[in-house]
């Protein structure tokens, strides 16, 4: 009798676990599927020229939303500069999108030796973050878009060197298999 009761409890626990595990897996898959394609948003660079996200189709696109008053954003940028330098040839394109005025952005871009395109704006940047799935309205916020336009990750908060490396290892083709250019501005 005692054994049977124990077995019954175990069956219940196992069923609950399987149910919960399946639910989490389903939830994660559903979220990935729901993320689907990136909207073809338009941004303006420091010279006022318009760019659409589709301009970078075929590359692994890392959009990094930042602001000059945001210390974790400024801490993260040197890592992104290094990442663009290292992985540009493997098909990575980072684009920095600053919610700020042109002058401070220009100053920080020079000071931090930013080697990737920079877009700027105000309310339209907040709307773009929202359209790309941001839920906090805070900085930094990064969105990783696969070469085919699928949003594959969204990250709130600054990325560490290890996290960037893990993303590059996961989403970039092995070295020497991509005909891309290094840096672009």
């Amino acid at each position, binding site marked *: 009798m005692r054994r049977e009761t124990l077995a019954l409890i175990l069956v219940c626990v196992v069923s609950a676990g399987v149910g*919960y595990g399946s639910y989490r897996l389903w939830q994660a*898959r559903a979220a990935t599927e729901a993320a689907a394609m990136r909207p073809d948003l338009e941004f303006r660079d420091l010279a006022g020229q318009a760019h659409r996200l589709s301009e970078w189709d075929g590359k692994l696109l890392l959009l990094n939303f930042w602001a000059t008053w945001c210390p974790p954003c400024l801490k993260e940028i040197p890592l992104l500069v290094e990442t663009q330098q290292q992985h540009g040839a493997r098909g990575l394109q980072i684009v920095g999108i600053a919610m700020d005025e042109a002058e401070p952005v220009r100053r920080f871009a020079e000071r931090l030796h930013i080697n990737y395109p920079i877009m700027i704006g105000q309310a339209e940047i907040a709307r773009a973050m929202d359209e790309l799935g941001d839920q906090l309205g805070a900085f930094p916020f990064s969105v990783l878009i696969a070469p085919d336009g699928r949003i594959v990750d969204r990250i709130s908060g600054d990325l560490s060197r290890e996290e960037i490396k893990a*993303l590059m290892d996961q989403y970039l083709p092995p070295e020497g298999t991509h005909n891309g250019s290094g840096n672009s501005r």
Partner: protein
Amino acid sequence: MKFAKKLWIPACAGMTAMLALGAFAADTPFGKKPPDFLPVDQAFELQPLVWKADGTLEVSWRITKEYYLYRDRLKFTAVAPATIGKPVLPASLPYEDEHFGTTQVYRDKLVVQLPFAKDARGEVKVTVVYQGCADAGLCYPPQTRALEATR
């Protein structure tokens, strides 16, 4: 048969553990959960405006652990025709940053006294601007909120 009976319980337990682990790992490509950052109004809980008996207006925040508000990004404006005196701020804590040097911040709670007319009656409206960050590496843009009190 007896052997199979003995095996089914650990097998089920193992399968459950693997499913649960897989589900957690599926959260991010690194298999690591990012910090769960709070929405700004939960990180910095702005309390209702208090109009004290001595005429002072009191604005306060409950600040979540590991989040902070910048002292020099606080702004208080009374909606006309009301006017307020110079805000009385409590002692702040130094915060080191490689780009901005030493700045002053508040943690845990912040209570600001705004000198106001002692004998005034009716309704007063105050606009508050504040900005803060999380230690884990996230900053919220400046927030503007309108508060009001009556007596």
